[in-house]
């Protein structure tokens, strides 16, 4: 009898304290992190975790968890900036390294270092953010198309401007698509601020088509996917070949010399009503269950890099050994200008 009544009283006390302390009071006390019964998780629109995992988190944490997904990575960060004084939720997942610096510069986040983040994930470190997963954005090729025509599959960015590969490539617009922005950064990383626009002009002269989003490029114009399009080269992900497996091999491959690495982060929103819950959610995203669910559900590599990968990934979706890099601070300082310049010159 006794333990039960203790539990009931304790439970009632917790419930009372949760109800009785409104968010404002908690933010008034900067020392102690806030907590409440509910947790609102803001994500990008591609976020999907299996229901079992979501339920498991809700059960273990005891929170009523709501997920909100207002847009892609860029839209998401801009909305967070706009709602700084009344945050959309407690914790955010889905900010990527092309927009990460805007979030930290605008003071949208508070610091948190998750104890669940292993040392081997330090390579992804970013201000105030916790890496959850990553992936490479690369040009993909339809292998059969090249075999049939006895043409070598191109391997480098420069190959793409070779007249041999005229009218074969489809890209996406950096101003409207996240892989498009990643590839723009790859060209800046490879050709430098002075050379990237000339490179794009050369791509254009070589007949590159630029679609507004990935879906259209991959499914309408690319020959190696289900849409049966006319072009054998497309901007996609290093993991895409794992989804075009035909028996013992994949019909497509990623050109690993053309990749830009995208890293996706989670962070705690400043002014969160449930900062403790936000921390728990970030730790949960780094837990072995979630990390091993990431490839199949989010199509990214787990940030905890010793997590076991699906068999197809190990065989058909290798990562680039040396992706093209642009430092985060540089992206933060110049991203908008680069996009503007690109749209003026190319778009």
């Amino acid at each position: 009898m006794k333990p039960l009544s203790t539990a009931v009283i304790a439970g009632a006390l917790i419930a009372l304290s949760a109800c009785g302390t409104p968010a404002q009071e908690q933010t008034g006390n900067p020392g102690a992190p806030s907590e409440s019964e509910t947790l609102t998780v803001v994500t990008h629109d591609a976020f999907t975790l299996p229901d079992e995992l979501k339920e498991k988190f809700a059960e273990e944490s005891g929170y009523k968890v709501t997920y909100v997904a207002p847009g892609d990575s860029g839209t998401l960060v801009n909305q967070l900036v706009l709602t700084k004084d009344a945050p959309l939720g407690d914790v955010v997942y889905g900010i990527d390294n092309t927009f990460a610096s805007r979030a930290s510069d605008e003071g949208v986040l508070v610091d948190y270092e998750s104890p669940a983040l292993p040392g081997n994930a330090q390579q992804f470190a970013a201000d105030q953010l916790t890496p959850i997963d990553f992936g490479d954005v690369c040009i993909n090729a339809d292998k059969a198309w090249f075999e049939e025509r006895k043409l070598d599959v191109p391997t480098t960015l420069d190959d793409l401007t070779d007249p041999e590969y005229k009218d074969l490539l489809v890209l996406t617009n950096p101003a409207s698509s996240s892989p498009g922005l990643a590839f723009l950064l790859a060209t800046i990383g490879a050709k430098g601020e002075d050379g990237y626009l000339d490179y794009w002009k050369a791509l254009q002269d070589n007949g590159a088509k630029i679609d507004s989003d990935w879906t259209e490029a991959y499914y309408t114009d690319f020959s190696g996917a289900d849409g049966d399009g006319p072009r054998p080269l497309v901007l996609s992900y290093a993991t895409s070949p794992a989804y075009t497996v035909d028996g013992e091999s994949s019909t497509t491959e990623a050109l690993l010399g053309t990749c830009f690495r995208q890293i996706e982060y989670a962070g705690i929103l400043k002014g969160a009503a449930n900062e403790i819950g936000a921390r728990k959610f970030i730790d949960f995203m780094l837990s072995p269950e979630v990390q091993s669910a990431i490839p199949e559900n989010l199509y990214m590599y787990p940030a905890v890099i010793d997590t076991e990968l699906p068999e197809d990934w190990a065989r058909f979706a290798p990562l680039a050994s040396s992706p093209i890099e642009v430092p985060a601070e540089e992206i933060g300082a110049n991203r908008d200008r680069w996009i503007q310049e690109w749209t003026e010159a190319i778009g």
Partner: protein
Amino acid sequence: MDRGHRLSRGAGWVGWILIAAVPLAFLAVFFAWPAAALILRGFHDGASWSLDGFTAVFSSSRTWKAVGFTLASATASTALCLALGVPGAYLLYRTNFRGRSALRALVTVPFVLPTVVVGVAFGALLREDGLLGWAGLGGTPTAIIAAMVFFNYSVVVRTVGTMWSRLDPRLAQAGATLGASALRVLRTVTVPTLTPAIVSAASLVFLFSSSSYGIVMVLGQNRYRTIETEIWFLTTQLLDLRGAAALSITQLVIVTAALWLSGRAQARMTRALRLQPDVADARRLDIRRDGFPLAVTAVVAVVLIGLPVGNLLWRSLHRDGALSVVNYVQLATTSTMGSDLWSATRTSLVTAAAATVLAVLLGVLVALIASRRPRGRSGRGALTALESVFLLPLGVSAVTVGFGYLITLNRPPLDLRSSIVLIPIAQAVVALPLVVRTLLPVLRAIDPRQLQASATLGAGPWRTLLRVELPHLGRGLGLATGFAFATSLGEFGATSFLARPDNPTLPVVIFRLFGRPGAETYGMALAASVLLAGLAAITMAAAERMRPQEVATW
């Protein structure tokens, strides 16, 4: 007029004003306030006011190109929709033939398709090796305008057709008896009486076309931009609120001008019609007499609508190059993207039903008020303004309103940002203008003599409303409900801003499925698109049959 009568008339007006307050308050809270709040942010950076946004935006040649392209493409799309839609309205509402209902359902399908689906369907036809690739239309303004017509054709067909089916045929018959040729009857009798419905449809198509963001993004391939895509770009990608605010105001000016013009045209041309309750005059299709509308409509149905929709259906029935229903089986049986098909369909239907109830209730109020016939000029002016106000949501950027929601409805008592309630509300804001515009021409066309007769016979205004106007309204109600439901069913712009991933609607599921690589998800996305299109077609067909009892016997 005796004193008592004047008093009761005065009381009547107070009543109307109170009734007007309900939809006005709704629009103020869920449209005007959020949009204004975001636009104001563009002029006030927290410390001081600034008009830099205007200078920057209007000194850029990009802006002028976008404004020019917006006007040109929307005008072309409106003209084409009318040219193709009026013969279509005749054929589908004035003649009888086998398959007419199916054709009516088919032309509405595009109305609900999410742009990502249209991108895939049109893109496959227009690309170099596509069925229509020989025409070289990929990435041209022609493709963009064709897609706008694809989306909006049914607006003209249905708005004009519903009116046409109810015109008293004796007027035209009299003309013919007096020796007028068919063309002359059409020009001098039929078209003028249809003008209010035509103007109504035209203004809807113009607003839809000028604010279409998705079509221009997908089919414009960066070369063509509209004010709407510029606002989207500046807001969601650059967070340049000053530039976006300047553009939003430009958009508002254009929309207001368009509405003012259409309002004037309508005021000049509205005439009382003798509407008859039945479609008794629908004649059997006669190839010789109806050859022209038949040819025009056949081309539209086959090339413009049939090919993309058929292509979608055909491809949804394939997996790995072979004919198969596996896409549908997987869609129905597997749970993907955090939701299964059934719960997504349920969410879609429930949300759309809620949005429809809201939009139709408010729309009926607005239409009733706007169709009053006050004697004074100022009264008439106020009503025209009121009517236009309710059309504004169609012409203002969804991004502006969506971002506006984030910064306005963010505190108790109206902290609705992550509330599921906001989705039907946002959809109702979008559907409301359609409801108003489909109901108004019907109400306006009531013969004033009928209202006067009712008053002479001693019926008060409310009784007249109940016995004369509401039954008339019933006729347009089916169409209005159908449009509202279809709009909400396919709505993605507002929904995507407010999306709750654990409760996705069908368009959200389609968007997610298309966003993943792999034959499986691609096939399921196609199948889900076909399902959505089918739901829309069924809804519109049902809405047309939905006729209030009292009308059938009236």
